[in-house]
């Protein structure tokens, strides 16, 4: 199977984030990492390739720094990478990001496209499904298991509140992958060394410009959320904090 994995670089989970001067985005001088569900999507593609053969291609969009996610993916076993390299890609909405990806892969022939189920920055949970619609492919979301069948694939969809569902699908198809579908591997030293010689195709904004248009939605402003709840800070040494908390539990919450 030939699988494309869409990956995104996002700020590290505990990175302290600051607003930019215009209050429309964050200051970008922070540490970045791979969007977590995308890491699971990559792992799943590698496992499918190990079982059934084929090729794993990884794609991302963003400035030069985002190449790091592709390098890591190549080190873990992806065969080649596509980098839509331009800072302008950071500000695209999900519709235009999907259009840019579709344009960048128009000469390729994949059986499956994986994305993480959502990103830790925007959190749209849309790009994969939009890409499927643009390509005219079927899709399934929040996938926890993938098996090859005679006619295509059988996937396990996670529903809410502990429910699941198996869905039979034909190929090609787009799947959005849930965190926890598998156990992530680490890159090996030999993998990191080999990654340096693997092909990485750079796609300039100009090459996909004609496919994308104005954003269909606009972030008017970004801000620190207003608190709706009054929070009492409990401070002191650990033993002081413990005593104060127990006093609250006993005399205010009455749970002790």
């Amino acid at each position, binding site marked *: 199977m030939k699988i494309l994995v869409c990956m995104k670089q996002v700020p590290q989970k505990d990175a302290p984030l600051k607003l930019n001067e215009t209050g429309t985005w*964050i200051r970008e001088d922070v540490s970045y990492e791979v969007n977590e569900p995308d890491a699971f999507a990559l792992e799943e593609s590698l496992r499918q390739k190990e079982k059934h053969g084929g090729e794993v291609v990884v794609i991302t969009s963003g400035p030069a720094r985002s190449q790091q996610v592709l390098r890591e993916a190549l080190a873990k076993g992806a065969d080649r990478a596509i980098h839509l390299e331009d800072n302008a890609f950071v500000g695209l909405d999900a519709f235009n990001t999907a259009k840019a990806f579709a344009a960048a892969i128009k000469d390729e022939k994949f059986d499956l496209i994986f994305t993480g189920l959502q990103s830790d920055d925007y959190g749209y949970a849309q790009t994969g499904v939009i890409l499927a619609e643009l390509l005219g492919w079927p899709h399934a979301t929040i996938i926890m298991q993938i098996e090859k069948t005679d006619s295509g694939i059988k996937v396990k969809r996670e529903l809410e509140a*502990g429910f699941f569902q198996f*869905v039979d699908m034909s190929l090609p198809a787009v799947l959005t992958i849930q965190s926890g579908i598998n156990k992530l591997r680490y890159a090996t030293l030999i993998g990191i060394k080999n990654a340096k010689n693997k092909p990485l195709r750079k796609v300039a904004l100009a090459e996909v410009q004609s496919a994308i248009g104005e954003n269909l939605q606009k972030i008017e402003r970004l801000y620190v959320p207003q608190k709706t709840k009054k929070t009492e800070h409990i401070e002191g040494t650990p033993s002081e904090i413990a005593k104060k908390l*127990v006093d609250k539990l006993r005399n205010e919450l009455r749970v002790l």
Partner: protein
Amino acid sequence: MPDTILVVVEQREGKLNRVSWETVTAGQAIAAATGWTLEAAVVGSRASAIAAEVAAKKVAKVYAVESPKLEPYTPDAFAAALKHAIAAKHPKLVLMPHTYQVRDFVPKLATAMGRTVISDCIGFKHENGKLVFTRQMFQGKFAADVSFASDAPWFATFQNGAFRGDKAEAGASVAPVETINVDIADNVIRNKPQEVFKEAKQAVDLTQAEIIVSVGRGIKEQKNIEIAKQLADALGGDLAASRPICDNGWLPMDRQIGSSGQTVAPKLYLALGISGAIQHIVGMKGSRTIIAVNKDSEAPIFEIADYAIVGNLFDIVPPLIEEVKKAKAGN
């Protein structure tokens, strides 16, 4: 024709998903702010019964969008049916709850119409005649006000708990129900879904727990879960976790709180090393009292905490266990 808002309610196995009332409340609030007319739609193979339930609310009209092909749910059939209904009734704004099912088909529907979805919103503002939707970004560390930059229909989904479902106003009279029968061609539906099921091992019911001690990534290693367990035992409560802990296999999946796990509302929710990702918060924000311990003072969990302790949980939990034990022994 006046501008209209269409709320698409969700059904599961012939019953209205209660989160739909929250979207009705949101629709009523936006209608009041904008002066637009509020309508609702039910999609399914037997939508009429639920349409009648929704018609009792303060809405101008309810559409029962019906086709035998809508059962069982597939994104292809739902997108096709709603595209047909929206093209016929041309609402300006289409609202839905941000459920897993809606997430599965609404980006497809909007894309098929050349439009966009502002997803997972927690509120709206109507400022100088402009409608903006508020949504969380960067895992809740920031909020963004987002506007539509395209023509109608506009699509927006609301996060579970963003509005109060019990505040959905009843109508002065029952709204008329109009059935829209949709023809869905045989080749439209590509996926073949099987029966919905629950994993058998789901043994723990945390929804009735009065005290929950919950652990997140801050617990660092599987062996450290023991101190959270000891605290839960001392308090007479149950142990739970955020998703990454269960993904790692450190606690079983049936102890997971959040959108993909259980939704709880205990008297006390003690969050240890949980940053407060949106998917976790939606599962526990109804708790009466939330105490959060986290070393990151900017962790989003503190936004909803009643009591905040900024510090290392490994310093704070051991003396807390001792104090709780002492207090219990003194009883």
